[in-house]
């Protein structure tokens, strides 16, 4: 089968590899019908999460049809022929964390937990196609995918919607939604969102779905005008970080209080706001003294109103410098974060699609065959050709 593999920083290719087979008795094999490129794939491809091995298959936003199930799969939950979305993380449903619906913290699915324990103290759940830090599982940018603990991880989908409306339930829709929902938004709240990428777009729409009074989106009008326009189309006020003072605009929009909820939907590869900050992080990351460039979260902490909540949805993997701890502590801020607990949100978000309250396919700008995935990665990274979200077709 064809699969997109990682070979070296900034280098991916499509290669013929063996088809996956059942390894454990609760595995299933999925024929992938749609699979997407996620912003967090860029962190892997660019070498910001240094646990990739050449030949690893990428991809964690797949959906497809179940082709084969292992002997111990509970067939009342998933069976051959079912149409399923596969969440990006693999969860067991049984452990301490799964019992508390913290599925992305699952204790039983990461095959190499000692890496996470060294780097993070404790390991996360296994994640599809997301480096050996999260278990080294082969990913979903391929024609076929093995799903472990399939009766818990395969999320059955109705037949009446096309793939593009459902596939984002695997990651970015729940991710944008959780970024707002776990901050417990109130009807008079202002939500500010750094980053108008796909997760930012879903966070904007989720903030409105959850009843926020005002949503402000922050990004660069010169670099990504199409993303700013998409944010405005959803009803957000936009701030151009290139031409405007973000802090001043946010305070003007909130009667001097600052936003109640500030969402970092950018993560570790943010581009800086001031020359000094940019140079500082460039030097440190290039010398491996720091593994990320946390501009967005710094600014979110400074702008957030006293007693407000800063929500970190963007991915970080290692060490960040110059986090304004003074602002965090003295302003009595709350931090909400985490890899998304996708399984927790799938039923209610599927319901929003059913009710027509959202059509997740709004974010798709490019549809390409899997064989063109390396080109897709390039335009997505460079944000060229108006690229916001790519859906790959493995069968084409």
């Amino acid at each position, binding site marked *: 089968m064809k699969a997109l593999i990682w070979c070296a920083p900034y280098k991916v*290719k499509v290669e013929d590899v063996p088809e996956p087979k059942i390894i454990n008795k609760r595995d299933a094999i999925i024929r992938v019908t749609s699979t997407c490129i996620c912003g967090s794939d860029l962190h892997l491809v660019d070498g910001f999460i240094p646990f990739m091995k050449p030949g690893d298959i990428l991809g964690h936003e797949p959906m497809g049809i179940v082709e084969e199930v292992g002997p111990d799969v509970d067939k009342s939950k998933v069976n051959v022929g079912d149409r399923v979305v596969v969440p990006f993380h*693999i969860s067991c449903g049984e452990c301490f964390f799964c019992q508390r619906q913290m599925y992305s913290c699952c204790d039983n699915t990461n095959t190499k937990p000692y890496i996470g324990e060294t780097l993070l103290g404790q390991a996360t759940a296994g994640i599809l196609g997301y480096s050996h830090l999260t278990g080294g599982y*082969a990913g979903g940018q391929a024609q076929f995918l093995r799903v472990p603990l399939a009766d818990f991880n395969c999320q059955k989908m109705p037949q009446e919607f096309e793939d593009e409306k459902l596939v984002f339930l695997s990651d970015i829709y729940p991710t944008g939604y959780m970024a707002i929902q776990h901050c417990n938004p109130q009807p008079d709240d202002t939500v500010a969102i750094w980053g108008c990428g796909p997760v930012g777009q879903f966070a904007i729409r989720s903030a409105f779905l959850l009843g926020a009074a005002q949503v402000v989106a922050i990004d660069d009008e010169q670099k990504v005008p199409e993303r700013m326009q998409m944010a405005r189309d959803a009803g957000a006020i936009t701030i151009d970080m290139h031409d405007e003072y973000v802090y001043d605009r946010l305070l003007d929009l909130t009667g001097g209080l600052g936003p109640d909820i500030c969402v970092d939907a950018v993560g570790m590869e943010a581009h800086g706001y001031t020359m000094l900050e940019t140079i500082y992080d460039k030097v440190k990351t290039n010398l491996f003294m720091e593994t990320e460039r946390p501009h967005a979260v710094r600014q979110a902490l400074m702008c957030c109103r006293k007693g407000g909540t800063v929500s970190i949805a963007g991915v970080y993997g290692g060490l960040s410098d110059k986090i304004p701890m003074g602002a965090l502590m003295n302003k009595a801020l709350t931090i909400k974060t985490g890899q998304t607990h996708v399984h927790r949100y799938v039923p209610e978000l599927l319901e929003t699609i059913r009710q027509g309250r959202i059509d997740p396919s709004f974010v798709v700008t490019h549809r390409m065959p899997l064989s063109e995935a390396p080109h897709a990665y390039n335009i997505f990274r460079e944000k060229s050709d108006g690229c916001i979200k790519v859906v790959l077709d493995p069968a084409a």
Partner: protein
Amino acid sequence: MPQTQQSAANRGVHTGDGRQRSGEGPLRQFIQEHVPSLTPQNGHQAHRQNVADGERVVSVAAGAILAGLGLARRDLTGLAIAGVGGALAYRGATGHCPMYQSLGVDTATGEQHRRSAESRGVQVTESYYIRKSPEELYSFWRNFENLPQFMEHLESVHNEGDRRSHWVATAPAIYGGQVEWDAEITADEPNRRIAWRALPDSDIQHSGEVRFQPGPGDRGTNVTVNLQYHPPAGQVGRWLAKLFGEEPETQIREDVRRFKRLMETGEIPSIKGQPRGTCLGHGTRS
């Protein structure tokens, strides 16, 4: 078998070696003799060595190169690079890294553990909450023939009567590929505790104990495993020292974790045999 109860927090390798690593090591001695101003007082806890000797040499060398490159640039970025280089060199020279200290990292002590583990054998205690009842966990473990399902280096165990069993473990080919011994159960308290040991005339001196105690709330059962591999005897001993001497804690910790996963989910997560690419135009399996 120590009768004292090991607490869950007290995981880890107990080598019985309380020696503080304060002054030994050729590099440290060299620095003490030649660069006394860089050498912190011995025994001063805040500046204890926490960087392994090998890493120190690399740190000094890399630091010197960076400092040189940085200064050669003659600009602001160069100055920053030189500063970083200086810090690296200093940390290598003193063997103390403030960043490691603040992160709680200590590569020097691991080195010490490793060295004494090689010469003294190991005793490891690991503890996990497992979301199953003590009854279920006890009865699975009590049938020693189940142990190879989660103990990676065990090939097979055969029960021979109620308290005797025959164990086969894998070993590198130069040691014959296998090591075998007979073990007997020395304590059996249903749903609470099992202890066993290799018979005294075995090639390997090994003993183990597992305890099952109800955990708080819905957290399942607190399972504590204590394994000992005593001083090496002959070739097999050398192999064991090597096998367990490298990372005995990790080795056994992973075995107990596999037990937890097998009990909670019915399987052990695996990626063996999944497809991967080669970057050469054709794929393979891992």
